[in-house]
């Protein structure tokens, strides 16, 4: 476990992910302040407590990057002429793959959960400074939902990377999807079923005024997203255990 944590701490990509995740939320609150004030003045906001937490959406890229590099770093070829990969050394040290994956997952969850809690606190603190009482602080339940969404998103990217074994595909996919207008959101316009994609349904855990064809209660939303992650992790785990490294 400490070996996996130290490996993560040695990755420049992991630090980049950590910083993006922590700073993007507060930064966006400041940058987006004029638009939020206008929306408040127009009265178009359906749930004012959403306004603080919704800025966490883009900061999630940080969690995604952490989830991706945890795995993709194992499969990156060394730049020397051996072309060796970290995964060979890792499996030599920890041959039991289920155990290895368990420890790796635990290390990631630990880091990302800490990051999620800090990012939520920072974002809400900056929101309080910028908007004062105009944007009420959301309750504890919604903050917990936001952190859970954060951790589950990282695990989603992590499971995906175990399957693809390359950082490019999941990184591009998740970045495109965290774009200002997400692809999942565009898909909900094509078919209402897309509202059950993990990133859309999971957001109901902490946002209430979302534009979506369905509005499941936070607990149900959390369960659906957790189910997505559990299924993907199980599939990825099976592949990791069965496949040649």
């Amino acid at each position: 476990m400490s070996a996996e944590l130290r490996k993560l701490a040695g990755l420049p990509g992991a630090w980049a992910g950590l910083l993006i995740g922590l700073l993007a939320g507060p930064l966006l609150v400041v940058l987006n302040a004029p638009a939020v004030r206008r929306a408040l003045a127009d009265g178009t906001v359906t749930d004012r407590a959403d306004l603080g937490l919704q800025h966490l959406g883009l900061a999630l890229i940080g969690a995604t990057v952490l989830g991706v590099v945890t795995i993709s770093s194992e499969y990156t070829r060394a730049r020397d002429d051996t072309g060796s990969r970290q995964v060979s050394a890792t499996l030599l040290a920890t041959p039991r793959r289920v155990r290895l994956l368990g420890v790796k997952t635990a290390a990631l969850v630990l880091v990302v959960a800490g990051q999620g809690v800090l990012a939520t606190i920072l974002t809400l603190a900056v929101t309080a400074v910028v908007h004062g009482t105009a944007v009420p602080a959301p309750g504890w339940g919604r903050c917990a939902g936001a952190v859970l969404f954060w951790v589950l998103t990282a695990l989603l990217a992590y499971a995906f990377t175990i399957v693809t074994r390359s950082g490019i595909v999941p990184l591009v996919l998740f970045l495109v999807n965290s774009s200002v207008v997400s692809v999942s959101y565009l898909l909900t316009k094509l078919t209402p079923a897309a509202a059950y994609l993990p990133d859309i349904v999971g957001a109901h855990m902490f946002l209430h005024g979302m534009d979506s064809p369905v509005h499941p209660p936070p607990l149900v939303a959390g369960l659906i997203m957790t189910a997505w992650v559990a299924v993907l992790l199980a599939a990825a785990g099976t592949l990791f255990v069965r496949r040649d490294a």
Partner: protein
Amino acid sequence: MITAAVRAETGRLLTLPAVWLTAAVTLVAAGLLRELDHTQAGLLVLGTLAGTTEVRTTLLAVPRRGTAATARAVAVTLAATPVSAGAALLADRAGAAAYLVMTALLATGVSSLIRHPAASAGLLTGWYMIAGPVLRALVPASAGWLPDALRTGPALVWTIAVLAVAAVVLSRRDA
């Protein structure tokens, strides 16, 4: 010399399974979403694949680096043109085809400077999908100056500049 290098580089690109996969996903996305704002990410990946894979082998086969850089740019143009044209037509924006080809070329240059596939793809997609749109929302005039706003003019200038820098760096730096 140069025609042989172009033929070799085109052959290399067209036999990378990831290139075909990217092309297919890009066209499906263009057909499904009917827009290019997200779809252009496919061209970024295409360029990144060309710019970061098998660089050492390429230089072993074509040691003249200027020739290698030129051949790569021509091969990317050849490979990206049908994908760009298809995506632009599917999105009902036929005029944007040239912009998409330039996007792939720009990604080739940037990624060959960064020399790490995932880092390049992350940086480029992060810029095109997130930083760029956020900047445009704050400073609308930035669309006329940056390469990511589906405008041919700025994209052309940026692409030429980045490719020139990448070619110089490729000929000067240890591979």
